[in-house]
Structure formats: C-alpha cells, structure tokens
C-alpha cells in the first residue's frame, strides 16, 4: 500500500470509528433519558402509599366495627357505610390501573390480595344491616376483615421491598449510563481532535502541492 492508499485507509478508519462511537454515544444518551424518565414517572411510591392507605382504612373500619359489634355507638365521624366504601376504594386501587400490575405480577401477593377482596365482597352484603345497628352483622364483618390486618401489612411490606429493589436498579442503571456516556464522549472528543488534526494536515499538504504546481506551471510558461 502506497502513501496515498495508507492515508485513505487512515481517513476511512477514523470516520468509521467516529461514526460507531457517535452511535454508541447516542445510544447511551437515549438509555440515560429512559432511566431518567423511569425515575420521574415511576409508580412504586404510589403502591406504598396505596398499601399504607388500605391498612389505615382497614384499621379505621375495624375500630368502628368493634363497638358496633358489641351493640354500642361507634361515635365515628363518617357513617359505617361511607367508611366501608372508603376501604373498598382503597382495595379497588390494586385491581385497576398501574397499581394493579405489581399485585398481578407476584403470585403470593395476588393470593393474599385475592383473599382480602373476596372477604370484602362477602362483607359488602352485611354493611347495610351493620350501618343500621345490627350488631350481629357488625360482628360478622369484624370476623371477616380482622384477619386481613396481616394480609395488608404483607402488601405494604412487599411494596416497600419492590420499591427498594427498583430504586437500587434505577440507581445502578443511571450510574452505568452516565459512566458510559462520559467515556464515549471522551473518546469521541479525542477522535474528533485527531480527525481535525488530520484535516488541517491534509489541507496544508494540498496547499503546498497547489503552490508547487503553480510554481512549476509558471516556470514552464516562462
């Protein structure tokens, strides 16, 4: 391979390496954007919030039921029907939308939550009577829902664990993408510098050749 051939080889080699590097850099940039979007739009915090809310509302419902089951006045701010509807709405959060996904994915959680939803439906038929003061109905609801303190605690703990795992993964991905991006950017900058040096050198060489050619032509004309 002669000098011009070697130069062409180096030139194309640089261009190819630069294009490949730009591709990697663009890919790392998009991946970083994806990780950042996942951080901004993530759902786990809502899952924890919803699980904690369900626990709170179950606690309030059971607290209201205890005196009702004993034939006493619950002395609550909300009627039992409304309190039960609030609990129902919290359970419903895990049946629809983005919050249903973590429960659906985990067989254990699905079973735990399925049991709770089933007993909630069974209790639904007794709510009217309990609200009207039927202590036996209140007692039946109490018996149906009391065991689910543990179920909902499990749901909250599972949500926390999922959240921790996802945060860790996002953090690792974020760091990795940032390192890749800065490495690719650094190498791309070096390649760009070398390419620029080569272009300046080639330009100077072309100018010299042109000057030599002009000189030779003027000598021939003389």
């Amino acid at each position, binding site marked *: 391979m002669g000098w011009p051939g070697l130069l062409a080889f180096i030139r194309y080699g640089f261009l190819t390496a630069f294009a490949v590097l730009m591709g990697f850099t663009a890919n790392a940039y998009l991946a970083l954007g994806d990780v950042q979007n996942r951080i*901004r*739009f*993530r*759902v786990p*915090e*809502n899952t924890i919030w919803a699980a904690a809310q369900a626990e709170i*509302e179950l606690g*309030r419902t059971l607290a209201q039921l205890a005196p009702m089951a004993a034939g006493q006045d619950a002395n609550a701010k*909300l*009627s039992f*029907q*409304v309190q039960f*509807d*609030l609990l*129902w*709405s919290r359970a*419903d*959060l895990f049946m*629809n*939308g*983005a*919050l249903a996904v973590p429960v659906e994915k985990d067989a254990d959680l699905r079973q735990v939550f399925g049991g709770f939803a089933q007993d909630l439906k069974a209790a639904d038929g007794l709510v*009217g*009577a309990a*609200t*009207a*003061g*039927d202590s036996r109905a209140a007692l039946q609801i109490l018996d149906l829902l009391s065991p689910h303190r543990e179920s909902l605690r499990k749901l909250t703990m599972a949500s926390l664990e999922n959240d921790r795992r996802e945060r860790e993964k996002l953090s690792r991905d974020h760091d990795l993408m940032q390192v890749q991006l800065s490495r690719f950017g650094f190498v791309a900058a070096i390649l760009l510098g070398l390419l620029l040096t080569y272009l300046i050198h080639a330009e100077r060489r072309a100018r010299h050749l042109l000057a030599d050619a002009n000189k030779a032509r003027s000598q021939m004309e003389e």
Partner: protein
Amino acid sequence: MIRFFAIFIAVLAMLTGARASESVLKVNAGGQEKTYTIEALEALGVSTIRTTTTWTDGVQTFEGVSLAAIAKAHGAEAGKLIVGAINDYKAEIELSEVNAVPVMLATRMNGERMSVRDKGPFWVVYPRDDHPEFAEERHNYKWVWQVGTLEFK
C-alpha cells in the same frame, strides 16, 4: 318481622342520609363557607377532559367544573387551594397552576356519577395527556379523590 322491617327502614334512611352528606362540597374562601350539591356545582359550567390516570385502565372521559371557575366564583385569584378528602387527606395546589392548566373537579367519569367507591363524588383531575408534565409522579398527590372540601387561602 318487626325487627326486620325496622332494620330495613333504618338501612334505607342511613343509606339515603349517607349518600346525601357525602355528595356535598364545602367551599371556603375568605372565611365564608358555601355548600354545593353536585348539581349546584355543575351550574358553574361543565367541561370535559379525556385523559389516562395512574389509577384506571385506558383513556377516561371526565366531566366536571374547572377549579379556575370555582375559584372565580369565590373571588379567589391568587394564593393556594387546599383540597380535602372525606377521610381527611389534604393536598395543596397553587392557584397559578389552576389558572394556567384546566384542572377539573370531576363529577362524572365516562358519563356516570362517581360513588365513594369509584373515587367520587368529586375527584381532582389533571389533563395529563394534553399536558404530559403532569404525568410525572410528583404531581400524583394532587389528584385528590373523594373530595369533601375546598379552601382558598
């Protein structure tokens, strides 16, 4: 038999009472409180938002009254809006945001009134599909459902 009828009538009375009390909205502005039924609130002007939410599947059609219209009806132009749910949850929304984006107090979802079980009777809804910045998780706390009170400060 008498006991059965007594319970039946009591259930009916309590359900009617509960539905009535949970379907009103108390609005407080400058120390003056006004109570709205759903119909009275809708008389301020109903608008529509089609959007996805974190808590439902697919695109939903919400109808309701814009928070800006409620603020205007109560002479609130700047400051904060405290939205309270019937379970005492509270969220603070800047009125500048309410005036800039058509945030709504929804009274219907897909043409149906919303019960407490369906996050009703009033639900703060952001047009997050038209304004994707509100799809970010940090805004979710403002989508208060089962709203019972609005307080302009």
